[in-house]
């Protein structure tokens, strides 16, 4: 399993999902995280921290999907996992008052659905270490 909810430290209210690269070539799923609350959630803020880059030019898709291990890009599409390390904004906050909070500026996460992580470029992502930090509202 290369995708899992992390409980290693105090997260100050953030859901932290740990991602590890793998040696698999070809487009494929890294893993999926089931909605942890069992109710409709609204993701309004998220960051991806790339702490160790992949050796090859793999790219990352992240999204919410009703089916486990299914490619989805409503949170992130083809983010390079090699190259510069750092923190990347995943949910845009460049949204005016009274604007619709829809992708890429907000994503609904239905009960029973998943955040899925997908390797898009067909490259091995060996060495990659990253964490997705998510803030959400319980719409229940």
């Amino acid at each position, binding site marked *: 399993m290369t995708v899992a909810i992390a409980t290693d430290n105090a997260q100050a209210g953030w859901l932290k999902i740990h991602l590890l690269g793998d040696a698999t070539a070809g487009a494929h799923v890294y893993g999926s995280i089931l909605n942890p609350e069992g109710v409709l959630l609204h993701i309004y803020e998220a960051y991806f921290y790339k702490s160790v880059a992949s050796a090859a030019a793999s790219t990352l898709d992240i999204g919410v999907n009703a089916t486990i291990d299914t490619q989805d890009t409503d949170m992130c599409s083809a983010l390079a996992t090699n190259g510069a390390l750092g923190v990347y904004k995943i949910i845009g906050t460049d949204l005016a008052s009274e*604007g619709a909070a829809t992708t890429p500026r907000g994503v609904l996460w239905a009960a029973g659905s998943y955040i899925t992580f997908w390797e898009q470029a067909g490259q091995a992502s060996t060495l990659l270490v990253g964490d997705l930090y998510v803030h959400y509202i319980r719409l229940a």
Partner: protein
Amino acid sequence: MTVAISTDDAKTGWLKIRLLGTATVAGLLGQVANPEGVLLHICRAFLYITTPSLAAAVPLVGIGATGVSDNTILATLATNQAAGTVWNVVGMDRASEAAATTPWGVLWPAASFLTVTNSVAASTGLVADLYIRYIRLA
């Protein structure tokens, strides 16, 4: 009462205010007193429309004295949107070091109210929740 603080489930730090529409075209739908009794700064808010109003009602939402209309939080958003949609309320399109004033932030004094005043058309059918995050400036 058509505007009230909701305590139905865990809110993970959000103040949830339930809005229910009425047949009133223009007038106060309801209000909520400052729940902390100290000056607050509303820094983030979303409106979740679970059931839209039948007509294009525009609730004016803001901070004021009891019963007084104000639109510093919402001014133009019609509530006959698609069911199950989330709308940004406090603008986040603001650079570092800019003033966090309406629509990018709103002060909520200790003894004032968040008031909801309907306008334009009746809000019959509306079921929505206003989620608010604030800082205690005290």
